[in-house]
């Protein structure tokens, strides 16, 4: 009866030590009941903490997913206008996000499991605390102090085992959420510092380049059309069949475009 037996001995000795500290058995009952109520509070706080961490993760996952989709779209658009370098850049950035997301999703599942476990533990403890309260009142009303001792020991060892179990479950959940919080904090910082926003926020360099290309493509198409009208030979440059027929927007920036694929130092001149 090795591991199983030794574990139960540990619990029993803890319960006995707690009982030995009490002078009057009735005092034991009330004191223990107070401790149980405290433990219930603690486990409920534990559930709330885990839920908070889980929601925070959920939010981060959503944010990263949005960026992932955006980069995918940008990659497609870039390819449509024949800029493989831009598309490659977008996909490279997306790959970094993919790894981040996979990790977050795993953590999210862990937290969900933890939350479920603690919720159930809290329900079990609540049921036992209620049963203990009933038993406590019965013992107080029915038995003399001397007689009560055995009854108290019986009730006490069961509930104290539960308390030890729940206590450890809370500790383990806390350790897990602490680790999560640290990681979530790091991601929040990344999001805040713009390391991620950079290319998906308003000052998005890939998007700026695509917008510029969109407008120049529009201009190119317009030129082709005019040349055709005037009966001039079309320029050899062929656009992709599925190229966007971008209406020349209120061109955000009409700087001379670097045609060598170099990146604009300052994305987006006019906001």
């Amino acid at each position, binding site marked *: *009866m090795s591991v199983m037996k030794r574990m139960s001995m540990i619990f029993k000795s803890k319960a006995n030590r707690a009982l030995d500290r009490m002078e009057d058995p009735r005092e034991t009952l009330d004191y223990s009941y107070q401790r149980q109520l405290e433990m219930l509070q603690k486990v409920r706080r534990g559930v709330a903490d885990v839920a908070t961490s889980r929601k925070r993760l959920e939010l981060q996952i959503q944010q990263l997913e949005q960026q992932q989709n955006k980069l995918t779209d940008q990659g497609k658009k870039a390819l449509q206008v024949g800029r493989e370098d831009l598309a490659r850049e977008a996909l490279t950035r997306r790959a970094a996000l993919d790894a981040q997301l996979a990790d977050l999703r795993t953590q999210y599942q862990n937290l969900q499991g933890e939350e479920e476990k603690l919720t159930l533990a809290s329900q079990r403890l609540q049921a036992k605390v209620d049963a203990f309260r009933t038993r406590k009142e019965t013992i107080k009303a029915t038995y003399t102090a001397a007689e009560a001792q055995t009854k108290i020991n019986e009730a006490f060892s069961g509930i104290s*085992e539960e308390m030890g179990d729940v206590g450890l479950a809370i500790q383990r959940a806390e350790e897990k959420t602490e680790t999560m919080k640290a990681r979530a904090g790091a991601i929040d910082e990344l999001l805040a510092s713009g390391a991620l926003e950079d290319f998906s926020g308003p000052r998005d360099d890939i998007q700026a380049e695509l917008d510029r290309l969109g407008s120049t493509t529009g201009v190119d198409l317009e030129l082709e059309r005019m040349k055709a009208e005037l009966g001039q030979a079309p320029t050899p440059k062929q656009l992709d069949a599925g190229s966007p027929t971008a209406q020349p927007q209120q061109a955000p920036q009409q700087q001379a475009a670097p045609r060598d694929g170099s990146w604009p130092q300052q994305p987006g001149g006019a906001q």
Partner: protein
Amino acid sequence: MIVRIMGEGQLDLASADLTALNKLDDQVEAAIEAGDEARFRAALHDLLDNVRQMGRPLPADSLEPSELILPPADSAMDEVRRMLGDEGLIPD
């Protein structure tokens, strides 16, 4: 005979099932002694699965103490070692 799986609750088992559990329990112990994490996990999961299969869950409001107590399913070997070493891992 009442068995507790930590983090899951208590189950009632027939004493006849104890023989099978003891064998599995020995394997858990052997794995801890050998310091073999993978073997420990496999043995622990075997043991817990068997208890879950054979046992009948006790009602949540029962105040019965357990005769046997098993570590949580997701415990690492080191954690169980510390529990057995009675270094106060289980809170008072």
